[in-house]
């Protein structure tokens, strides 16, 4: 059983202490196709839950990654700038997007676990 939680917008969150690591799901990267560009937020930026945290561009289209929780951006995945394909190769691993210092962990309460998310994507 994975420790990832998922949003309905296909982001995943892994909580480590007071930090949330955020990326997009395998389902999402599959739907997007080849990722060719990722725009990450400035470190130090304050994000509100539901706000645009990053932009992801596939060959066909641009889409947004939303912050699943409010807090300050404390790190971003630098290697995505030169190797955005990491999002396709390892969406829940090396293809992570950003880390947020969590303001209020209760904001994460409504997220889906892996089983619920799989059912959601198959629904």
């Amino acid at each position, binding site marked *: 059983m994975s420790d990832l939680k998922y949003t309905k917008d296909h982001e995943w969150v892994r909580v480590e202490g007071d930090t949330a690591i955020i990326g997009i799901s395998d389902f999402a990267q599959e739907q997007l*196709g*080849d990722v*060719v*560009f990722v*725009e990450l937020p400035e470190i130090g930026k304050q994000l509100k839950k539901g706000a645009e945290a990053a932009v992801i561009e*596939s*060959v*066909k*289209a641009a889409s947004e990654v939303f912050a699943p929780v409010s807090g300050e951006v404390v790190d971003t995945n630098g290697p995505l*700038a030169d190797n955005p394909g990491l999002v396709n190769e390892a969406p829940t691993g090396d293809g992570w997007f950003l880390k947020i210092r969590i303001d209020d962990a209760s904001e994460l309460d409504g997220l889906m676990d892996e089983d619920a998310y799989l059912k959601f994507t198959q629904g």
Partner: protein
Amino acid sequence: MLKQTPLFDLHGELGARMTPFAGYEMPVQYPAGILAEHLHTRAQASLFDVSHMGQLALRGDRRVAALEALVPADIQGLARGAMRYTVLTNQSGGILDDLIVTNVGDYLFLVVNASRKAQDMAHLEASLEAGLGTDCGLTELADRALLALQGPMAARVLGRFIPEIAHMGFMTAAPFEFNGVRLAVTRSGYTGEDGFEISIPSADADGFARLLLAQDEVAPAGLGARDSLRLEAGLCLYGHDMDDSTTPVEAGLAWTIARRRRDEGGFPGADIILAQLRDGVARRRVGFLPKGKAPAREHTIVTNNDGAPIGEITSGGFGPSVGGPVAMGYIDSSYSDVDTPVQLMVRGVPRPARVCKMPAIAHNYFKA
């Protein structure tokens, strides 16, 4: 209800992701993905199903005059087996569609955009009824599929089955018979590469497509790769890079207006188009080279360095062979010189770019 092409079952077997396009259910990509399909086309050869495009036959003794009344190309000068890229214009000089016209001998063979097929046919028929050629008739060759085999290995592959295609020049057409199937082959395409389009009876299309796909060099490619390939090749997409409000001169298609037609006129909007050729245009289609890696997509506003709007991107995205963003669009002519610095408003943020030459990737057409 979406229409299906004769290769629908094959697309399913190949694992294509299908998408509605111009009333058809079409493959946007196969499991390899758009990047791989694009790069494979430039390196080897790809098979595209373009059966959604309209294949029309214009027949009758006055077919040449009838068509010349609607397009600025030299159709009179089109020898048997020759083909031309041209545009249907309206009275304001705007473009109703772009199309390929081939003189196949008995008739003129027209390939038009799927999204414009019905309008084009109505437009052509109305013109014929208006006395431009009462002995002319327009028919859709609806029982034919259209396959595009594109890439530097395309001639080697097709030559295995039809050796005579080796002698075809670029933008020429010839009929062949293979295993009892009548094929109309043109050496042309929409990728910037050497390649062929093969018009084939619908009933025989699946078998011939499978034969081509069985060749080592050939992989299937979908509409996604077709779009990124034509974008790198600087080729227009109707409804995006031109429409009924843009003229061929603005669209950078003045080269399609034949010498004789410039002297004689006689096509819709000729007064406006010929005046633009003489006096210039206020805006024109150019390429844009964004600095950095962020793609600038259709409808992105172009500004000068003071932030004043001077144009708009009409096609833009990531060019897999370029390895970065590629874009084209319209700009105020006073900014249209190559290397002019501009800004592209991507997600509300101005990003530096330059006007650049097209195509972004040099054409690799066959030269005899």
